[in-house]
């Protein structure tokens, strides 16, 4: 059933986000630390475990892949709710302090990528479905 997939996603969301919230509390900061990341790892491991035991039916998976396909429209909706007006009215300092450090960070990416090359370089074609 489709809802099983949605529920599986929900359990990963809740456990991962709670873990991130509590990790933040534990570190004494007012922010979620890695909640989405923990939830993603949990989903990968859990779905792998379930499919090895034959519990991942196509209908179950469709409950997850629906949200996967909704992701870009949701990001568009998110973009539409950003405080863009404030960003522009923040003046030159806001614009420069937003752009220059980001440009420096962008420039570091090729260097880091070369310096820490993964052992088996399969380039851009290693997003295989391993479930």
């Amino acid at each position: 059933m489709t809802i099983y997939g949605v529920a599986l996603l929900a359990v990963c969301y809740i456990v991962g986000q709670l873990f991130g919230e509590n990790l933040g509390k534990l570190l004494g900061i007012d922010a979620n630390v890695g909640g989405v990341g923990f939830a993603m790892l949990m989903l990968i491991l859990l779905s792998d475990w379930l499919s090895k035991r034959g519990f991942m039916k196509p209908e179950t998976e469709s409950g997850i892949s629906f949200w996967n396909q909704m992701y870009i429209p949701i990001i568009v909706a998110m973009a539409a709710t950003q405080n863009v007006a404030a960003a522009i009215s923040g003046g030159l300092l806001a614009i420069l302090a937003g752009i220059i450090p980001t440009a420096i960070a962008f420039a570091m990416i090729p260097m880091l990528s070369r310096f820490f090359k993964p052992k088996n370089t399969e380039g851009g074609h290693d997003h295989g479905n391993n479930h």
Partner: protein
Amino acid sequence: MIMETITNFLAKNGLVVAFLVTGAIMYAANFLSINAFKKKVPGAAIAIVFGLFMAYIGGVTTGGKNGIADIKIFSGFSLMGGAMLRDFAIISTALGASFVVMRQSGIVGLVSLFLGVILTFFAGAGIAYVFGYTDAKSMTTIGAGACTYIVGPVTGAAVGASSELIALSIAIGVVKATIVAIGTPLVAKYIGLNNPHTAMIFGGIIGTNAGVMAGLAATDPKLVPYGALTATFYTGLGCLLCPSVLYIFMKMCFG
């Protein structure tokens, strides 16, 4: 009278309205991508830029801070584009992502996270200094704002910065998210952002969730889970480092 009924109805069923409007935006964006840009600009990128433009219109017309969602009939955008559905959808992208790649790039992901926060912080603080903010409190808040629009106010509140300064740090963070969303597909080719390994570095060093997710979606949706995995730690790390060690460092240097 009829107008009022329609407005109230649309506001009450906001999420469904948001689905319809976003669907129309996606259709128009894909149409433009194919017919006007010969597929050189992805439909998702056009749609995201259009979304940001709508946010600007909403902010200017209402004076609110939630973009288009401050206009009554579009209020459903705040649910559809809010953190809950966003994170729910982002997590779903992990299905089909390779755990092996994530583990291999784990170390560089961690390095890029620290490098991203520290580098961005000091670059932001340096710009603050050039603009005449030469005290540790202001430079720290502005440097933190250059990380993300959450790190900025969290840090500003922690170090006791003024509310104008905190508002400025939020504005800086939003500029960053916007520029990353628009700029990533444009520079992807030049920084080699076409594989999961680089996507993890990108997520770690850039870190602003909204920008990273939108930027990768517009570049190549297959890379989204990898960038999202590292980016999700950035704001937390920034909130950890900026008001503590980095602030202490600034205090030692600038008093």
